[in-house]
């Protein structure tokens, strides 16, 4: 951080890029899902419209201070997560504030927004909110296990927990990517990724017919706008994280777009063709196959 | 039955223990240790012809004092156990049939003789076999004869109690006198040793034995009386 203001400026630029990228990505995904269904689908800029719409809502109700702060927590979590990650390898203006901490910081910061959001949603007093949170949190705990194991395997492999260094070690062609050099860990990580994206089939926490939309049942108007904007950051931040960890990172924006988009497509396609798991099912699944894979990945480096 | 079997097995085991002991006992041929010393010094030192008495009353006088206390304790214990609650009226003994004339006369005749015999035994304890305990027991047997022959016989508790207490007390006092006047507690040499073999010899031994005899006699009599009244 040679110059604070430069860093800040760069951060704003990358945030701007990633926000739009995240929004468009969302739209594209809607479109793709619709096409898979054989529909025409909404326009790719539909997320923008939705965002503007919720911002234009005239009234809002609040259940209390924590309810009010929940989306703030959530959005801070999303932005923070993104800001703590180096986005493009070797590109100085896309390093954000990654000097703040290493991979562990990023992993743990994922929870910041979720926890804050959970608190806010829970204050609404709507029983569906804690129900959704319970489901979401439960599933996260299960899916974090293989992810953690994969990360540990990577750390063991590269002898570092710095994302930049992990990406650096993967430079120089696809043969150096972790998916090639450490396929087991990647497999475990990617299975965990399905759960972490909270996409179908692992989206019981929002189960619309059962507990309408889950945690954010009570959220509306501008609260919702924060959450929608956050989704752009959060989802892309997670994608970037996985890209950095397993797929060699990116050195320029097209590569970034390409890799993250393909990563996202994995979850989208799996989600589109799979029915929703019950909570027990998904937890058991995560604790079995992905975790065992993760343990194998770790054991490789233990002995 | 199983109990008897177990007992039998156990006692067989115990029998082997005793057998083991028995096979290892060797008969002694001569006096060893303290007994030899007693034999050598006893007569000269204490002036008692009966060495057993010398040992009992003086050398191991503390034992004997303890022995007296044991008996005293037993008597006290029995008295405590058989004590009567306040307001207890003793069953009248009229309904018991009196004993026959022959028995009464015989008893009256025998009792003084038995008492005399007892007194003789404890008076001569330092010379001949016998002593305070034996004599006392004999005296008590006279009382027992009275009890047996005469159901309505009453012991004079005041007198008996007084004799009992005072004889014990004097015994202890003589023991203390031993510290003051002679070599140690219960030393018999507070009185002159006298002529070896005569009745007034061996220092305080005859006195002590007399006291013991009185005490034992009264105590045993008291025990008998207590038991008789209660049973």
């Amino acid at each position, binding site marked *: 951080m040679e110059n604070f203001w430069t860093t800040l400026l760069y951060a704003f630029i990358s945030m701007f890029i990633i926000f739009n990228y995240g929004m468009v990505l969302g739209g594209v995904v809607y479109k793709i899902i619709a096409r898979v269904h054989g529909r025409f689908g909404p326009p790719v800029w539909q997320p923008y419209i939705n965002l503007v719409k919720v911002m234009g809502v005239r009234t809002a109700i609040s259940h209390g*201070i924590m309810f009010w702060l929940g989306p*703030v927590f959530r959005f801070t979590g999303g932005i923070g997560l993104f800001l703590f990650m180096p986005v493009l390898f070797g590109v100085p203006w896309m390093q954000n504030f990654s000097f703040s*901490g290493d991979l562990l910081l990023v992993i743990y910061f994922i929870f910041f927004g979720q*926890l804050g959001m959970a608190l806010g949603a829970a204050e609404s*007093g709507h029983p569906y909110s804690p129900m959704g*949170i319970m489901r979401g949190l439960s599933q996260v705990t299960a899916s974090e296990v293989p992810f953690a194991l994969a990360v540990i395997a990577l750390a063991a492999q590269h002898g570092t927990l710095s994302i930049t260094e992990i990406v650096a070690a993967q430079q120089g062609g696809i043969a150096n990517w972790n998916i090639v050099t450490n396929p087991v860990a990647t497999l475990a990580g990617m299975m965990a990724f399905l759960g972490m994206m909270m996409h179908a089939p692992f989206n019981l926490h929002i189960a619309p017919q059962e507990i309408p939309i889950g945690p954010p049942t009570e959220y509306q108007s501008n609260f919702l706008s*924060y959450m929608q904007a956050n989704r752009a950051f959060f989802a892309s931040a997670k994608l970037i994280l996985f890209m950095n960890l397993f797929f060699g990172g990116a050195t320029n924006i097209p590569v970034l777009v390409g890799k993250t988009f393909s990563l996202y497509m994995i979850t989208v396609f799996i989600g589109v063709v799979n029915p929703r798991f019950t909570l027990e099912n998904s937890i058991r699944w995560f604790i079995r196959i992905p975790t065992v894979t993760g343990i194998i990945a770790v054991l490789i480096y233990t002995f | 039955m199983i109990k008897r079997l177990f007992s039998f097995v156990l006692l067989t085991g115990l029998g082997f223990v005793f057998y083991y002991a028995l096979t290892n006992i060797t008969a002694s041929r001569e006096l060893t240790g303290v007994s030899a010393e007693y034999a050598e010094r006893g007569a000269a030192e204490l002036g008692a012809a009966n060495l057993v008495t010398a040992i009992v009353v003086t050398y191991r006088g*503390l034992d004997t004092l303890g022995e007296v206390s044991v008996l005293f304790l037993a008597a006290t214990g029995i008295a405590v156990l058989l004590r009567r609650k306040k307001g207890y009226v003793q069953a009248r003994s009229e309904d018991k049939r009196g004993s026959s004339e022959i028995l009464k006369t015989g008893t009256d005749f025998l009792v003084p003789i038995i008492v005399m015999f007892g007194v003789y035994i404890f008076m001569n304890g330092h010379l001949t076999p016998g002593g305070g305990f034996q004599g006392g027991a004999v005296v008590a047997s006279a009382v027992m004869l009275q009890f047996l022959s005469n159901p309505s016989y009453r012991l004079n508790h005041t007198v008996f109690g007084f004799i009992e207490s005072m004889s014990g007390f004097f015994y202890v006092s003589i023991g203390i006198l031993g510290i003051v006047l002679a070599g*140690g507690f219960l030393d018999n*040499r507070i009185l002159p040793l006298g002529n070896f073999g005569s009745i007034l010899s061996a220092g305080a031994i005859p006195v002590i034995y007399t006291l013991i005899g009185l005490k034992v006699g009264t105590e045993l009599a008291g025990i008998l009386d207590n038991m008789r009244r209660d049973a």
Partner: protein
Amino acid sequence: MVNPIYIIAVLLGIGFILPLTEKKLSKLGPWVFYAGMIFTALVSYQWFRFFIVSGGETYHIFTAGVKPPLSINLQIGLFESVLLFVTNLTGLAGAVYMTKQISETGVRAMVLLLLLLLGLNGLILTRDIFNLFVFMEITAISTYSLIGMDVKSRSLSAGFKYMTAGGLASAFLLLGIIIVYSLTGTLNLDGMIRSAEGIKNVKLLSIGSMMILFSFIIEAKQFPANGWALDVYEGTKPGVAGLISGIGTTAVFFGFYKIMPLFTNETLKIVMWAGLITFFFSNLMGMKQENVKRMLGYSSVAQTGLVISVSAWSFMLGNDKLIFPMIVLPLLFNHFFTKTGLFWIAGLVKKDTTGLWGSITENKILHGIFIILILALSGFPPFPGFWGKWNLVLAMSLDSNFFYIWVLLAGSLFEAAYLLKWAGITLKKDKSKDILEYNSYKMLALQIVVLIFFAVTVYYFMTGNFDHTNGGLHFYLPFALGTGLLLLPFIPEKLKGMISMSVIAVYAFYFLPDQNGIGRFFNAMFLSGGFFLTFATLNRKDRSRSFYPLLMLMLGSLIALVNSDNILHFFFSWEIMTLSSYFLIHRGKGSAEESFRYVMFSLAGAFLMLLGFAYSFPNLNGQMSFGIFAVPGQFTSLSFILISIGFLVKSAALGLHLWIAGSYAKAEDDTSAFLSALLSKAGIFGFVMLLLAMGAPSAGKFDLAYILSWIGALTALIGTMMAIYEEDAKRLLAYSSMGQVGYIILGLAIMSGLGWTAALFQMVNHFLIKGILFLAIAGVIYRTGTSEMYKMGGLIKKMPWSFTAVMFGIIAISGVPPLTGFGAKWLMYEALIEKGWYLQTGMAFFASTVAFLYCFRLIHAIFLGQPKTEFRNVKEAPAWFLIPQYVFIMAIFFFSIFPRVLIDRISAAVEPFFGKSLTWDGNTVISSLGYWNATAVMTIVGVVFVVLAIGLFIKLPKVQKVKQFNIVFAAERPETPELTHFAYEFFRPYRRAMGWMVRPYATRFWRSVTESAYTVSDALRKIYTGNGQTYIFHILLVLVILFYISTGVK
């Protein structure tokens, strides 16, 4: 100097003359009686002073004016004088105690007592074996009579059984005496012992000594030839039973002790083991006992067995001169006074069953005495029993007799079990208000005995191996504070709390700056934690006077623990801490069972720790510094394991955690904070000391540190897992505490600079967080009156400050950046990965994510969701609770922004042992694997958060505030808050999926252990059928068995 023979003479003289006063001089009798008693006490005091103060030489008394062996001689030396004094004083007290009974029975009861005393004095004084027999008979017969004195069927039958046994004993004694006499030609003990060595007929001698031995085994009530003794204790009036158990046993023991040199080493070995077996089995059988006097009887028998066992062993070693005052006397005194006192208390309470002893609380002094005696009997410091056992264990270890120590400690544990259970019952007042009859004579007698006991205790405490030069203050501090506060009678409790706080503050002020090294963190933590958490206790409304003394005792012992510089200090403080915390927990409502479980686990752990010490102790000759662990020896790894188990119990490691939830939950709410925030660190401190001194040895192929790491990781995971299913907030926090401490253990097990930094950082973190959380919950419970989370809800509106505190607490505890919890996690994972323990890392990670579940549940179920109608009017928690919480929160924020302040100091403390592990670049801490800039994280998060919050505020200047039922619904309106608040069995689906992890294996295991112990206990005690004949059978059986053991099976 009055010749001790006068004791005998005077007692006898008075005894003989007393019956004369029966009728006419009945006023005079008692005067003479008490005069005689006082005379003996005075004479013995004179000798006592002569030997203790002037250090006089042993004095011989010859009777009959002839030298031994011809005559009987008495001897009074140091030990005799001590025993004599204690016996006569207690005898006097006993006479006072039985005043009423004596006056009812009449003058003859006085005679019995006098002669009992005579017999006991004789037993202690005499040096002639036959004389010993006579005095034993005097003792026995007076005891029989005293037993039968109340002429009840029970006491009569007990006395009868006693007499048959006593008759057998005397028969065998006579047989033995005559055999030994026939071989040695003397009856004088010294002469016998002298000439016994040259005897040719060894077999006969061994039979003779065997007979004597056997007789004493019966008289000393050794297992299993002791059924009658238990009946006697049960059937007799407590006054007499106390005398039998106290002075009677002591004198008989001393007689036995005098004869012991006569025995060969093989025989002594038998005595030693027989005594130990008695100790073990009697205590085991005592566990099932509910009859107070019989239970005391079992304990009495056990203690006698132990004392005899130790004495026999001391003669085997040929080291009796040293062992007697160091081990035997403390054990004996401990037994003597406590048993006398307890029996006498039983005579005041007049309840046979332990369950009915609630009425003792009517009399505070009596109750206090009772508790103290129970503790002394259980072997807790600072009472003599502790010193005796401590010295015994270490001495045994020097003799490499470890099996003995195992059995000894097992027996002690059983004993503590039934005693503490009993004490626990009395601490809980029962509903039936029995009036406690107040008897001033009995109280007086009791107080005499207890006062002597205190004197003895103080003596042993003052002379008990403490090195006063170095940090001695710490060890007196807890007691000084505790008793000081207890004795401040009339000041209000609040003032006491403030005094406590100021004492802590002053202490910290003068003491902390001089500290360095790892101990400083513990000191600082305990002192600051103690200060602020005590602040919360100022809110207390109840008038109970024991709280602050106990609290200060606990804090003081924690400080003493940290500053102990040898294993004795350590163990001493450890026990005090266990004890004080036990009582603190016990104060909670309905906590009897839980606190009992706590103290049993703790005690078992402490005993294992003691065993560990013992295994290491021989390594360095007689030194007690922690250095003994550094010296590798034969048992290094075993020692490590045992000590570790002790610490693991305190840290509630998996499998040893059964106590934690219950005791944290049932303790009073402000106390729980102390337990979790401070007390749970004691085990950690133990590990720090242990690992520093010992490193991490390996047992065979296994690296113990590696195993420890798995224990830590599993504890972290399973503790957390159990926390999420709890409905009770405090139980939840208790399990959370268990999990968090698991992390600390994991960190310590890494045995690297980074690992230890992580562990200590986590420790400080946990201390702050649990302080906050428990206090916040305490505040909530204080207002709502319930700790069931699902019964609350929506309290955020009523208690926003508590909510905020809990929120920061859970953010910190779950390890989410930017608060300190993340720092701990970061350090921990870096250290683990650096070490190469990847699986443990994964498990720790899993645990930390699972922690979110309970964190959320805690805050949701209490503060969020639907407020309940009944809690509509609750107020914010009192400021007493809130202020410490916010102090801690400020500390958390400070450490979150500037973790360097803490990490630098921790690293500096850890560096001497492991070298440098972290480097700094400005505010960025750099490890070998990664980096972390807490200041930057905090700044970024803070700025983003504030900007977004402002943004939202600008966009939404006015929002409609709605109420709890203004939630989305279409069909039926929410019916009641209870039905709308989703909190009960919150994680049920999770349980369906992951419940297999928390199956109560440990509970089942420990339940089966305790149940089988009780079953064995119950089955075993059935040998005491109550039939006198069976007892005769036992006695003869023991004889035969002993004989065959000693001579070898033919």
